[in-house]
């Protein structure tokens, strides 16, 4: 079942990413990105990270993508015009992206023996919640970074308000 979950939702994530790359209208790109994030949430859940799966759905596909779609609608962003693109993207960009993919896959696959396999059955069948572990670690060892993120969010909100304000 876990293998089937990985195959189905991994294929869905890759399809969403390819669709994100190919779509020309920003709204279509945003919706296919939502598909990617939802299937990644399922993969997080199958890896035993229930809290992160919920946070992925709520924060990423709930809050951030709504913000993106809101800005797309606000700015009335249409289809991007068909340009030739920059020459640098074709000469360096696509081989660069392909090289990144090949390098990462080569390293991951050659080190696959030492990396081992994910034994996924235990988490799902025993229904162990890791929220208590996450919260213990977050509020004990990572308390200072957690508090700093609240300051970061506050500064980001203030900066967004100041930047998006109309000039008089």
């Amino acid at each position: 079942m876990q293998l089937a979950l990985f195959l189905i939702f991994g294929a869905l994530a890759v399809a969403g990413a390819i669709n994100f790359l190919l779509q020309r209208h920003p709204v279509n790109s945003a919706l296919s990105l939502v598909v990617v994030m939802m299937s990644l949430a399922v993969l997080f859940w199958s890896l035993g990270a229930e809290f992160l799966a919920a946070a992925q759905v709520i924060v990423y596909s709930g809050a951030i993508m709504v913000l993106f779609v809101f800005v797309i609608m606000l700015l009335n962003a249409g289809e991007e015009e068909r340009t030739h693109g920059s020459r640098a993207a074709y000469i360096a960009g696509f081989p660069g992206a392909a090289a990144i993919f090949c390098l990462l896959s080569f390293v991951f696959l050659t080190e696959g023996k030492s990396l081992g396999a994910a034994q996924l059955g235990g988490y799902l069948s025993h229904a162990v919640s890791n929220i208590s572990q996450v919260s213990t670690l977050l509020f004990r060892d990572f308390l200072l970074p957690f508090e700093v993120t609240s300051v970061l969010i506050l500064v980001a909100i203030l900066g967004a308000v100041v930047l998006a304000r109309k000039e008089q």
Partner: protein
Amino acid sequence: MTAVVPISWYLVLAAILFSTGVASFLIKRNLITVFMSIELMLNAVNLTFVAFAHMWHQVSGQIFVFFVMVVAAAESAVGLAIIIAIFRTRQTLNVDQVNLLKL
């Protein structure tokens, strides 16, 4: 029933998503779409964090995914405000026409 998925499959999936994000970052001409491809790359990195956290039976990796999510939320808020400000002054979302910093 307990099918074993090699951990490297998750990492290769993350590599696919990351390089798709890199490619769309390079070829997209719309500022908002370029921003969304950054989010795609962050998501791919999150997947590697969760996979490694699962592999080592440690929740520290999941904590870092949490922090990445928080920083991505803050970054998208500020970035979209910057995009709105750019659109107000330049009336365009095309990255080729936003060349104020060019020499």
